């Protein structure tokens, strides 16, 4: 679905922010791109819908070379959801806000009506349809931002740091939306440094450090490799730390969930 072929990217012609990035994301996969600040994660994300085009190499989305397509074209396939919903809210009503992208893509008005209504109900925002987006709370605005993108049903949904500033409940809700997207067969790409969130929702992880891909594998492989994460400025999930503490006692290293940790402890006690 998405392919990065030896991509190099530089903003100013002097320093490369992305170096020789090669990646393949298959249809239906849920991938988390992790790395510390400045590693190039957001830069990578912006290549998915053509906001940025590679300086060298190529990015293919659905087989199309992004350098040959406009952002508007690519956005129909890749829905990019930015971190701060306030960067996009401008419409008079919540309805118009959600309809915005659909109108830009020239959907017929009856399709627009159906889609907007569906998505507003799905995200529990239907009661606000005629209200101004500015009347919504922070959490509601975030839902609105996601709804606006899902309204036009892109194949790929990309999130930029979705958990920043979110409380526990909001993160759980986000996790549920991701689950829903997975059941619909969508391809999901997230940029984040929230390891716990990744552990709970993503199967595949790409670790970016200083513009290069230093690891690409299952969440289990990458997130439980404490030394790798620390080497690149990240914190391992708490359960991984626990696994390392108890490694001398037969506790397996590759623990991701609470359930696994519990069972592992029981086994340690049997010894």
């Amino acid at each position, binding site marked *: 679905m998405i392919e990065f072929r030896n991509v190099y990217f530089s903003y100013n012609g002097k320093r490369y922010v992305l170096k020789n990035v090669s990646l393949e994301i298959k249809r239906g996969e849920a991938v988390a791109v992790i790395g510390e600040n400045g590693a190039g994660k957001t830069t990578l994300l*912006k290549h998915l*819908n053509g*906001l940025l085009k590679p300086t060298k190499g190529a990015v293919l989305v659905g087989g199309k070379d992004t350098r040959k397509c406009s*952002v*508007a074209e690519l*956005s*129909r396939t890749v*829905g*990019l959801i*930015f971190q*701060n919903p*306030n*960067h*996009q*809210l*401008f419409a008079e009503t919540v309805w118009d806000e959600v309809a*915005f*992208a659909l109108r*830009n*893509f020239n959907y017929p008005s009856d399709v627009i009506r159906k889609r907007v209504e569906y998505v507003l109900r799905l995200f529990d925002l239907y009661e606000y349809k005629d209200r101004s987006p*500015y009347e919504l709370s922070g959490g509601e605005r975030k839902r609105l931002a996601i709804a*606006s*993108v899902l309204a036009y049903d892109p194949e790929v949904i990309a999130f930029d740091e979705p958990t920043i500033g979110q409380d526990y409940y909001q993160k759980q809700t986000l996790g549920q939306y991701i689950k829903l997207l997975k059941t619909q067969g969508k391809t999901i790409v997230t940029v984040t440094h929230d390891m716990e969130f990744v552990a709970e929702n993503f199967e595949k992880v790409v670790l970016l450090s200083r513009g290069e891909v230093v690891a690409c594998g299952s969440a289990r492989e990458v997130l439980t490799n404490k030394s790798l994460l620390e080497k690149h400025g990240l914190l391992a999930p708490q359960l991984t730390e626990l696994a390392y503490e108890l490694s001398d006692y037969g506790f397996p290293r590759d623990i991701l969930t609470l359930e696994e940790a519990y069972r592992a402890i029981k086994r340690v006690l049997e010894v």
Partner: protein
Amino acid sequence: MPRIKVLQLLEAFSFKKEDTVLHKLDPRSKIAFEIIVMVAVFFLSLTTSIALLFFILLLHYKAKTLDKVKRSLYGSLPLLALIFLLNFLFSAKASLLERAAYSATMALRLVILLLAMGVLFLTTSPEELSAALVKMGISYDIALALILTIRFIPTLAREAETIVDAQLSRGLELEKGSFLKRLRNMLPILIPLIVLSIEKTDAVAASMESRCFGAVKKRTFYKEPTLKKADIAFVGAVILVVAALCIISALGLTPL
């Protein structure tokens, strides 16, 4: 519409701390230099203008700011060309050479003014500048407004870029369509920007209160501007050079 490169444009006026003579001068000397140049520039012929230009470029060289200045010069070339052209076409002078010389002088004046301003802004931090302004009698509130503006322009530029990215990602067309349509398409960018700016203003005000803004009537300045020997020497040199050039120009000693 090309991606906003406001940050690059602003680099021409952005301060960076260096260890040069010009950086250490009292901002008031530099302000005096500005005023002297701004007045004198109208009395100079082409040749003397060029001489003044070289003098100012020399100052930039000493201040290690020549690179930044180069970039802003390239950026202003279209405007300079326009000024030259307009003056050339509408000038009342007789010979072709005189018209060219006059037009070039007009264009050069703009360059000189820009570069002279650059000397002040590139070598003086906004805080030092406002301390100097206050010492010259300008109210601190005005000086603070200046600092905050300079401080937040890069921030707002970055927000604007993010907004453009977010809206482009929703299919907003900024390059195609009729003029009217493109104008209307600016709304999804302007509205979030304005709202964000207002919210930011609120947050900044709360932060400033929390840092004791307004606690005492007469606030002090950490870096109090003081006139030193170097300042007197600098202003003296500027007056000499500029006066000499004005005299040369007035006496008609130069060909153009």
